[in-house]
């Protein structure tokens, strides 16, 4: 991509008036999440949530989802924090914030399908990192949730161009990023990066958004980028893709991202990928339910 195109994308994303405002709690919440667990205080989180009733109510509903492990909805954010742990509650809040920022509407890319993929990837990232002793599970979740945010930018800022890319992807059954590159000359990675910079997200999340399809080019958080790349591929192979058939063979262990992740996490070698895949299938229905709770619609299984 040329430098002038990069500038053009940045400018268009910066100037866009219709970009939904992110809930006020979003940025401070990300700051809490990017710090170490000890720095975050229960009261800070509870205070943040009390700013936004809608987010708080949604958070309580989501906490009761099987994916987050509470049998009954908690009565208050504070009791949720106590039962689930601070990091988990922050993750739930972040999920709800994204639902507020990009509510379901008629876009080129069905938002329900988009969120199913993003939430699926977030959960796979977390499950993957659970198996790797040194990985930060909640950071992995956040990176998975936000990695494809550029698609939403494309829906809002470049709707015509993106519609052509989507059509090409469906027709040729190729990855959406590849179709974007062919038809638009840039991809969701660049537009996502521009939005992430506008939102002042942390450097490692920006790195994930910009390089999850080119892990080797990542410079700041390569193992995290590799983790998101692999989780994204796995989701697309297990019914959590973008709603169309991708003619794609994925050999995760031979992917360069696997070697990069293995350098940082030797225990990756012990992960039973087949069982991991079967377990992911179990989570699909729960992800559908979570999308319905957070984003208010039930997508069809792709």
């Amino acid at each position, binding site marked *: 991509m040329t430098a002038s195109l990069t500038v053009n994308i940045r400018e268009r994303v910066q100037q866009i008036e219709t970009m939904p405002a992110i809930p006020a709690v979003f940025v401070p919440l990300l700051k809490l999440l990017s710090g170490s667990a000890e720095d975050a205080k229960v009261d800070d989180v509870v205070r943040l949530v009390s700013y936004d009733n809608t987010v708080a109510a949604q958070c309580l509903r989501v906490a009761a989802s099987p994916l987050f492990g509470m049998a009954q909805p908690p009565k208050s954010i504070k009791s949720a924090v106590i039962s689930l742990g601070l990091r988990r509650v922050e993750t739930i809040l972040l999920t709800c914030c994204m639902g507020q920022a990009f509510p379901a509407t008629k876009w080129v890319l069905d938002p329900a399908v988009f969120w199913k993929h993003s939430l699926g990837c977030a959960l796979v990232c977390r499950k993957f990192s659970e198996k790797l002793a040194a990985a930060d599970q909640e950071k992995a979740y956040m990176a998975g949730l936000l990695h494809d945010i550029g698609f939403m930018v494309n829906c809002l800022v470049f709707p015509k161009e993106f519609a052509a890319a989507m059509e090409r992807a469906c027709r040729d*059954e190729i990855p959406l990023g590849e179709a974007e590159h062919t038809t638009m000359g840039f991809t969701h990675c660049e537009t996502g990066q521009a939005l992430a910079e506008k939102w002042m997200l942390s450097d490692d999340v920006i790195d994930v958004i910009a390089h999850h399809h080119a892990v080797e080019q990542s410079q700041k958080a390569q193992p995290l980028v590799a983790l998101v790349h692999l989780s994204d*591929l*796995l989701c*697309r*192979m*297990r*019914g959590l*893709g973008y709603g169309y*058939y*991708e*003619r*794609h*063979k*994925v*050999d*995760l*262990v*031979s992917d360069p991202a696997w070697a990069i992740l293995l350098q940082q996490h030797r225990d990756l070698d012990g992960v*039973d*990928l*087949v*069982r991991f*895949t*079967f*377990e992911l*299938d*179990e989570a699909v*229905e729960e992800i559908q339910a979570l999308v319905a709770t957070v984003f208010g619609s039930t997508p069809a299984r792709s």
Partner: protein
Amino acid sequence: MTIVTQPAVAPPAVNKGDVLDPVYRQIRDLVYKVSGIYKAEDKLYLLADGCGRRMKQLGARTPRDYWDQLTAQPSRDGELRQLLNEITIGETCLFRSQPQLDALRKVILPEIVGEKVKQTTKRLRIWSAGCSTGEESYTLAMNMLEEKDRLLQGWTVEILATDLNDRSVETAKAGIYGDYAVRNTTEYYKRKYFVTIDDKKLQVRPEVKKLITFSRLNLQDDSKMLFMKGMDLIFCCNVLIYFDGVSKSKVINHFFSNLNFGGYFFLGTSESLMKLNEQFHLVHFPGTIAYWKPSLKSGKL
């Protein structure tokens, strides 16, 4: 190898949505460890139902009692085999796994055809190992016929279908199926590749049969296995569960050496090889997995 193709007559004792004893998750993990078969959470009731039938036979009162029988000597090995029999009943039908067929036609065939394009003989060899009563073999044959004017124009397709059980092989050769076996078969395929006989039954047309050679073969017969070389695709669904670890490993090694470079090995939808062969590459396609013997030019062997 014979897999019973009719559904259990008795209604299930456990239904989808029932709250299950946590012991069933322990049994699920044991079954996975021993056989590589994984019953996902939404299919766990099928495992519980199979356990229920075994418990009735054995007179075990609770899932915990049954767990003891599954894990304690001397009953352990025999009982696990019985349970595996129970939980694989009725899994066979035509067009059993659409994601497998999509991967085959949309990704694998173009790849193999592309790799072999420079060879003088355009020949594709497929082996349905443990073909039971022929459902899988005919499904593959029909899908290959669909490609004969497109990807496979000018190609010869050979499907070898083998089973240990003589009666299964005879049934397979006849190619006559009832409603249950064709429950996933679309009207398009029924009209194009079957003729109706005896009111309700369907028989596979001769042009489909022509592609397949059915024969009896014991997968544990090493001398015979050595003659099955040159395969591009091997399907062996719900068969290896009947083998112990050592024989399973041996059979899988045979499959690996019988495959051409760049060939693929498919198991049943809930089966896996686990760590029994480190040379195969696990590959994902949309909705399905397979094992790949890398091509020489891929440099991944």
